[in-house]
């Protein structure tokens, strides 16, 4: 008797192996009726009706997922509301700070996040009681068959008084082709110092190996650099040194006597001196189009679309821009208008940084056209008529 007891203390479960799913299904009620312990089935694939036969309770996972999903939605709603409406309200796009429409996508995402994490982690840790190293069935002799073509029923110990011999007898009577008595698993506590040390050591070792491997691989095989992006460019950085030049600077002054392309110095001196300049551009449709565009972008706000000094800024600020239609300006030679564009006059700033050489002269042509349009001569009318 004492031998029997010591034996049953060592075993945690008894496996009965069956050849067919039908035999397994027929054995389930007998095993349950014996009342020796928890009845569990291990099969290579799900068998219809086995949940009902085993009398499994409805899984609480669905309820947990629902609760956590709703919680996720509320957390996202509350968090966003607090951030955007209370803590740091910024109006963007004319929308109210507490716009529920903007919250919905993130609420959706957080709901899904909470729900999936609850489903996955809840199943693994709460319901399947992980971490649990080495389920005894996994180290049984029958396991290779269970994952292929054998159907196992287990009577698992609920407490110390589990009688493995009686359990084996139940299975034998139910027609099991094979019986296996499983030893009690090593249920050592999870977070032992040994385990933590081993885990941390393993992670550290993996990091060291991966880091060293990466270091030497990229060093020895530089072409294998996984993500180069645009690290190596054959250009000089303005703020960095360079061995290309003798003085060791990346940034250099222009060579004496040279001018950067498109930056010719122009029209210095007085406005009167500039009067002699001649507009180098021909009066073509394209030139007028360039002038018109530049005028619309840079001049129209003050001088107005007609050049009469009535622009939108005049109304807004009361500043008086020159009326280009005035006799004084109609009598200006091209060069004087050009000079103003480059140097500015009175309140008008210089437009040289924004308009290229040819754009400036195109604007001059366009201003001439505006003046002509407001003071048309007879021959102009004839030209239009033609």
């Amino acid at each position: 008797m004492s031998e029997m007891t010591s034996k049953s203390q060592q075993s945690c479960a008894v496996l009965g192996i069956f050849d067919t799913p039908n035999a397994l299904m027929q054995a389930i009620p007998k095993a349950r009726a014996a009342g020796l312990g928890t009845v569990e089935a291990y099969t290579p694939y799900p068998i219809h009706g086995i949940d009902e036969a085993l009398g499994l309770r409805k899984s609480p996972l669905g309820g947990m997922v629902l609760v956590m999903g709703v919680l996720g939605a509320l957390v996202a709603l509350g968090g966003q509301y607090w951030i955007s409406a209370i803590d740091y309200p910024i109006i963007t796009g004319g929308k109210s700070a507490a716009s529920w429409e903007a919250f919905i996508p993130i609420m959706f995402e957080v709901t899904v996040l909470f729900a999936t994490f609850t489903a996955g982690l809840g199943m693994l840790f709460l319901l399947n009681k992980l971490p649990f190293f080495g389920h005894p069935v996994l180290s049984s002799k029958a396991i290779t068959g269970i994952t292929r073509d054998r159907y196992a029923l287990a009577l698992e110990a609920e407490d110390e008084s589990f009688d493995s011999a009686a359990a084996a007898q139940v299975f034998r009577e139910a027609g099991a082709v094979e019986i296996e008595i499983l030893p009690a698993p090593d249920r050592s506590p999870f977070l032992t110092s040994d385990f933590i040390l081993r885990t941390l050591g393993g992670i550290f070792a993996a990091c060291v190996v991966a880091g060293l491997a990466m270091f030497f691989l990229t060093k020895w095989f530089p072409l294998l650099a996984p993500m180069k992006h645009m690290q190596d460019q054959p250009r000089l950085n303005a703020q960095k040194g360079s061995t290309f030049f003798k003085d060791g600077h990346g940034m250099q002054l222009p060579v004496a006597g040279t001018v950067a392309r498109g930056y010719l110095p122009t029209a210095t001196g007085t406005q009167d001196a500039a009067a002699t300049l001649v507009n180098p551009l021909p009066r073509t449709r394209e030139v007028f189009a360039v002038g018109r565009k530049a005028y619309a972008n840079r001049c129209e706000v003050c001088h107005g679309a007609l050049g009469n000094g009535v622009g939108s800024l005049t109304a807004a600020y009361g500043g008086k821009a020159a009326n280009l239609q005035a006799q004084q300006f109609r009598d200006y030679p091209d060069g004087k208008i050009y000079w103003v564009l480059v140097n500015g006059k009175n309140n008008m700033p210089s437009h040289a940084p924004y308009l290229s050489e040819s754009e400036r002269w195109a604007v001059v042509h366009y201003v001439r056209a505006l003046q002509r349009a407001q003071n048309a001569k007879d021959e102009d009318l004839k030209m239009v008529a033609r």
Partner: protein
Amino acid sequence: MSPNKHASTLLWGATALGALGVLASYTTAGHERFWANWVLWFVLMFTLGLGALFIVALEHLVGARWSVPIRRIPERVATLLLAAIPVGLIALFALPVLYPGTRPEAAQNHILAGKAFWLSVPFFSVRTLIAFGLCLLGLAVLVGGSLKQDFTKNPAFNVRARKFAPAFMAIFALVITMIAFDWISGLTPEWYSDILGVYVFAGAFLGGLAATTLSVLYLQDQDRLQGVQGDHLYNLGAFLFAFTVFWSYIGFAQYMLMWYANFPDEVIYYKVRLTGSWRVVTIALASLHFVLPFFALVTRAAKRDPKRLRRVAYLMLFAHVLDMYWLIFPVLGTTPHFSWPELSFALFFLGGILLWIRGAMQKGEDMPVGDPFLRKGLEFHL
């Protein structure tokens, strides 16, 4: 047999009464309102039938076996397309009344003038006729072939249907997008949304599914679908559940992008629907089309409970009608029109649809008895 006859008399009576109201509303309620109602019920019938046909095609496409025993039901519901075609042909008379793109003033509007050919009555009608033709093709191959298989027991039909199903999916996408863009978006031709076709598809699938579910439950009550059990119902319930979420996802995605961008020509669509009494309709639509059915079907037990499923299916059908109302009726003005003309149309067309489906349910076998996979489908367990 007597309660059956009773119901039949009631249906005929309601339809006749509705028909009188429909005729009266043509003369007294104004042409715009009459045609808005007509287009609503045309689109509704069409989407129900097309949604059911989609379910049939889906089974062949993915090789589903569980739905073989109940396939005859969506096949019968899909014949609603045959009834929708004459309704749609009459609805073509609504074009000059209701659709701004077909009016002469459209030439002055540069947006409409650019689409003048596309929106013109002849090309609009041609597109609709093409859609009808494509639907008839789908019906002939998928439903006609299946009915014929009852007698021939020839498994060649399954092969043919499986090969045709992918093509039909393309046809389906084309037809439902065409219906959504022409008949629904065409009411507001200056407003466009690429996703509207998908939105209407989600509604159509839900509508077809709800009609299928109700018909399955109706036949089950009469013991005519023996072998169809909880797991089959569960799948129908799961589809209903999933597609309420899909519908609201698409609907909200469309709304949110327009709300964010805030372009005047886009938000006007929602401005109309979110002010005054239309706001109430919008909230009701969101609640009845998504919130209520979602929570009604969220548990596993609810999806296999015939009582619950029946209620949700009725709700989904009502929500689908409301959805179409919400899409179409704002064309009449900033307040929702609802009184005796709408009721008469509802009586007439609902009575007609029910009579049609009832009639279809009486004809032939209740299950595709010639399908070699029927047995497998009956053995289906989750």
